[in-house]
């Protein structure tokens, strides 16, 4: 872009200071040079189009008035308070020129009647825009009305007429009852609600969440009742009782009560992550990952590549979306959640790889893989994320770090090899965790997102044993992973750093 075009746009948008002398010079050039004028017009036309496309249509209240839309509609018990909610919403919003001109001269009682009529008329006029979609059958640029929608895979990013931005994750079933009321029958969503859409409500089978601004999530499929998680601002959770949930708080709607629970902000896909996932999909990342799976299927050293797609195992977990639309990951969220695994094998060398999406780093250890009988069976493997610190650990029973000094070391966990850096930065996004073990040399290596993080030495000569084990927890139940596990891989050799890096680059979703 040439300098004058840039200056012109800065002067025209007002986003930067441009001197009066420069403005005059630019206007002179704009008037006398057709090519420059054409270039500038092309840019500002597109800027105007973007502005209009991204901003919800206003409510054409004066047009409604001119058309004389003032007939009263029949009311039902369920909608008795609709008029008062609409009026409260109108009063609480900053008046715009569109609304104040209309309301300035009408008595409030008459205004209430017209608003009631308008609100009932408006109910049939739901128009929600699909901004981005990886759900088959629903593409960006289309609109949804008042209809039940069901998506089995992918995510949808929606924009309402009032500017509320909602990301719905499959599998999900939902219906916009009005532009401000969304019934979520199945699935989970995150919402960013601007002041103009204050009062945006998500209705579930066990209660509803009324947003007072600005960001929150709702999980309609949580086992104990729909969960509401407030990331920013405040939400009124309504289930028999009304409870105010503020930023950092979460609650479960249980039909007659709202009970507090831990926040799991990173369990919800935000619009920003949704965009990154959609871009990854567009780049063909799912197909690239599948190619590598096909390649490793021919590797004699492969013990397990579990993608949970056709998984029939029992346990306590939820099947939710994995890295790709239509893929499956296991979600471990509650204290006793786990998935059993028994590989019934031994390995002198191994590599473990796992695509993990952590919700948080709680004040408890989180177990990715946990073999039973650690104290009785040498070589039993545990793969953990350490509490608070967030570093990875790989205790293998019968081994210890060679430079561990039991007499001087106060931190007993330093007995085990650990990564150097925390996985804290990976909370709320898919990250590849990997670890290698070589019993011949005692070398243990940790990797995060394809990069070698740390290398440690442990006692050599201990064969690793993969017997009865749990994914996502251990047998005492209090080391729940708190997140999703997609693609758990066990290979009976030490993958070199370059191969792990290439694996990461080929199988990452963003």
């Amino acid at each position, binding site marked *: 872009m040439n300098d004058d075009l840039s200056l012109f746009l800065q002067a025209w948008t*007002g986003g930067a200071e441009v001197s009066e002398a420069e403005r005059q010079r630019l206007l002179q050039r704009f008037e006398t040079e057709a090519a420059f004028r054409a270039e500038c017009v092309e840019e500002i036309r597109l800027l*105007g189009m973007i502005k209009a496309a991204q901003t919800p249509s206003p409510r054409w209240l004066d047009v409604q008035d001119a058309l004389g839309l003032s007939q009263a509609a029949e009311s039902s018990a369920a909608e008795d308070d609709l008029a008062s909610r609409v009026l409260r919403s109108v009063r609480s919003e900053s008046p715009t020129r569109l609304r104040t001109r209309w309301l300035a001269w009408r008595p409030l009682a008459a205004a209430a009647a017209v608003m009631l009529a308008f609100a009932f008329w408006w109910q049939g006029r739901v128009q929600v825009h699909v901004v981005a979609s990886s759900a088959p059958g629903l593409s960006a640029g289309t609109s949804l009305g008042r209809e039940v929608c069901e998506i089995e895979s992918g995510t949808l990013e929606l924009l309402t007429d009032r500017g509320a931005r909602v990301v719905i994750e499959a599998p999900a079933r939902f219906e916009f009852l009005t532009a401000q009321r969304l019934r979520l029958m199945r699935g989970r969503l995150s919402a960013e609600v601007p002041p103009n859409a204050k009062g945006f409500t998500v209705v579930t089978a066990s209660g509803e969440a009324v947003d007072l601004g600005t960001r929150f999530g709702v999980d309609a499929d949580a086992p104990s009742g729909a969960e509401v998680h407030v990331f920013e601002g405040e939400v009124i959770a309504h289930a028999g009782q009304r409870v105010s949930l503020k930023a950092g708080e979460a609650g479960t709607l249980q039909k007659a009560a709202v009970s507090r629970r831990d926040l799991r902000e990173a369990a919800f896909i935000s619009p920003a992550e949704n965009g990154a996932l959609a871009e990854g999909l567009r780049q063909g990342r799912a197909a690239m990952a599948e190619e590598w799976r096909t390649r490793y299927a021919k590797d004699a050293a492969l013990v397990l590549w579990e993608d949970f797609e056709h998984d029939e195992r029992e346990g306590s977990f939820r099947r939710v979306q994995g890295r790709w639309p239509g893929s499956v990951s296991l979600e471990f969220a509650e204290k006793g959640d786990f998935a059993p695994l028994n590989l019934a094998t031994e390995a002198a060398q191994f590599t473990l790889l796992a695509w993990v999406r952590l919700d948080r780093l709680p004040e408890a250890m989180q177990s990715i893989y946990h073999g039973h009988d650690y104290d009785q069976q040498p070589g039993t493997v545990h793969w953990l994320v350490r509490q608070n610190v967030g570093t990875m650990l790989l205790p293998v029973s019968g081994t210890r770090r060679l430079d561990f000094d039991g007499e001087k070391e106060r931190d007993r966990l330093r007995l085990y090899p650990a990564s150097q850096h925390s996985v804290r930065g990976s909370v709320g996004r898919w990250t590849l965790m990997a670890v290698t073990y070589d019993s011949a040399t005692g070398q243990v290596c940790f990797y995060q997102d394809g990069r070698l993080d740390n290398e440690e030495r442990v006692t050599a000569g201990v064969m690793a044993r993969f017997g009865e084990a749990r994914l996502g927890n251990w047998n005492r139940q209090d080391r729940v992973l708190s997140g999703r596990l997609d693609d758990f891989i066990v290979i009976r050799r030490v993958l070199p750093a370059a191969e792990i890096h290439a694996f990461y680059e080929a199988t990452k979703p963003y």
Partner: protein
Amino acid sequence: MNADESDLNTLLDRIERGETDLYLGVVRRYELMLRSYLAAQLYDISEADDLAQEVFLAAWRDLGSFRRDGDFGAWLRGIARNRLLTHFRSQQRRASAVERFQAEVARVAEEEMEAGARHDESGRIERLLHCISRLPEKLRRVVHAGLEGARPAALAEELQTTVPAIYQLHYRANQLLRDCMTKEAQP
């Protein structure tokens, strides 16, 4: 006469026969085009929307004067140009430097603006939303944020760059958007 024009004339006939509610259908059909046209001259979307409402009201009151063999969109834009002139004149004394600049640009480029809007076929603006969603994340953030007021400076600080660089990024995004919309329009 194409199918869309025939369909619009049917709508206008029914409105003239008393089905006034149907005018909202006309509003819905042309609102995105009109708002884009006005935002391309004012940039401030709330001002553009206020003027768009005035245009729709004026069109409603004067519907009988629209020639059925004419281009309804062009007719609306004609009303919009008059409203814009009035808007700029009424602001003259108290207008900011930006508003005076916009007014002068609108005056000089009136023909180019109309020529460009005439070629905006339906669906182009819908394709734009889809194309925005496909932009790389950094460019999408710039496009979402917009360029008015303090936004470029705030975004520049967040992205640790300069305000001119933000304009450069938006220019790059616009290039990608045009390419995308052209490709999406191809059968």
